[in-house]
């Protein structure tokens, strides 16, 4: 026993190193595995407040282009007749309709932190559980899909950007409904890859790609981008398509969080069915 203690005190540098390194790796693995809110992310109060101050200052530089974009969007929204029926509840937009039930609601949020140059990119938004945000909600901007909510704190949430190696969005070609998974290859923040498009589909540059009806996070037909080029690996009967993303991730500052009102119902039913089959 005494020898052991002596051994440890003699080599304490190595053991301390081992302990710290194990701790680092364990929080790293845990976060990757469960995608759960942990104390080391920018939802945490201190870093989020510093970042939002810095973001507030930076926003002044983008005011002009942002105003132009908002004015354009307003004009477009006003032309939709339905919006005259909308009521404002907690900054969230709902439509009252006696024939149709509302399936999706949109909440506006501001981007306080953003990255595009890493392999796995995240955004931080200024809406959290106090504003009704929960994880796995979809995030869109006026120009297209942005990502999926991952962690939520009281007033902030972090979003797994489309520019992340684990983000897969079920998307389809608008013209004929052929669907396939879309993910990011890490090459450039302007392009993503759409896989598994059968070779009998005739593709043209500029074909529109939108979200498919099979995603739970997004409404159908939200714009993702346009076809840029495509090729076929000789061994597979599928095309791999390069998509030019419609969202400019470098300029994001106002986004919408999408809440699917029927999501839990659908998920529970599907889960029940799967369990019943086992």
């Amino acid at each position, binding site marked *: 026993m005494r020898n052991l203690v002596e051994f440890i005190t003699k080599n*304490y*540098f190595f053991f*301390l*190193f081992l302990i*710290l*390194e194990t*701790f*680092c*790796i*364990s*929080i*790293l693995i*845990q*976060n*990757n595995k469960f995608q759960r809110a*942990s104390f*080391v*992310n*920018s939802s*945490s109060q*201190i*870093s989020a407040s*510093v*970042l939002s101050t*810095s973001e507030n200052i930076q926003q002044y530089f983008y005011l002009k282009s942002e105003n132009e974009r908002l004015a354009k969007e307003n004009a477009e929204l006003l032309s939709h007749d339905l919006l005259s029926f909308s009521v404002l509840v907690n900054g969230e937009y709902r439509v009252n309709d006696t024939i149709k039930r509302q399936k999706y609601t949109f909440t506006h949020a501001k981007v306080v*932190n953003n*990255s*595009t*140059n*890493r*392999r*796995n990119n*995240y955004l*931080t938004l200024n809406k959290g559980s106090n504003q009704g945000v929960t994880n796995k909600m979809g995030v869109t901007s006026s120009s297209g899909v942005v990502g999926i909510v991952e962690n939520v704190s009281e007033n902030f949430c*972090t979003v797994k950007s489309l520019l992340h190696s684990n983000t897969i969005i079920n998307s389809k070609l608008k013209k004929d409904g052929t669907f396939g998974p879309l993910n990011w290859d*890490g*090459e*450039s923040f302007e392009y993503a890859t759409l896989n598994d498009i059968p070779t009998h589909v005739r593709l043209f540059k500029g074909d529109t790609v939108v979200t498919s009806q099979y995603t739970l996070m997004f409404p159908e037909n939200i714009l993702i981008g346009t076809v840029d080029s495509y090729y076929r690996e000789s061994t597979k009967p599928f095309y791999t398509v390069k998509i030019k993303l419609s969202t400019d991730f470098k300029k994001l500052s106002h986004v919408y969080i999408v809440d699917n009102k029927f999501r839990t119902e659908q998920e529970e039913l599907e889960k029940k069915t799967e369990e019943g089959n086992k």
Partner: protein
Amino acid sequence: MTNTIIRNIIRFFVLILVQVLIVKNIELGRFINPFVYVLFILMLPFETPKWLLLISSFILGLVIDMFYDTSGMHAAACVLMAYIRPGVLKLFSPRDGYEFGTQPSIQYLGIPWFLSYAGILVLTHHLVLFYIEIFRFSEFFSTFFRVIISSLFTIFLVVISQYLFQRKKDQE
């Protein structure tokens, strides 16, 4: 002595702010992600106790992790870098050891010494960091390229900041 401690604490916070508010927003293409904050670990005095070296690097990494949303990656890289620092110092030590009260900087030991010392440590840090971030081998070479380019850029920034420090010291 207290002067050195205070100076290191100030450097700790200044480097974090510089990294998070300025360097993080420098975007020179997808391959260049400099991490200047490692200068703190490079510049700790020679007589820093080893446990303090590890603990302070660990905390530095953890704080950076908070801002980058990368739970534990920077902390892991920093701790490894701190662990090999004494070995690297021994490897490059002058014939009669380091003078007491000096810092591992260009002004005391010259550019060739500093470049090899910083080069090894920064390269280790970046290697660990980028490969942990990718966590797979399928993009091995593009990641390696990223490591090399980013390390060169970090060292470049570190050397420049050394000259800024030095001038300030002469005036004192």
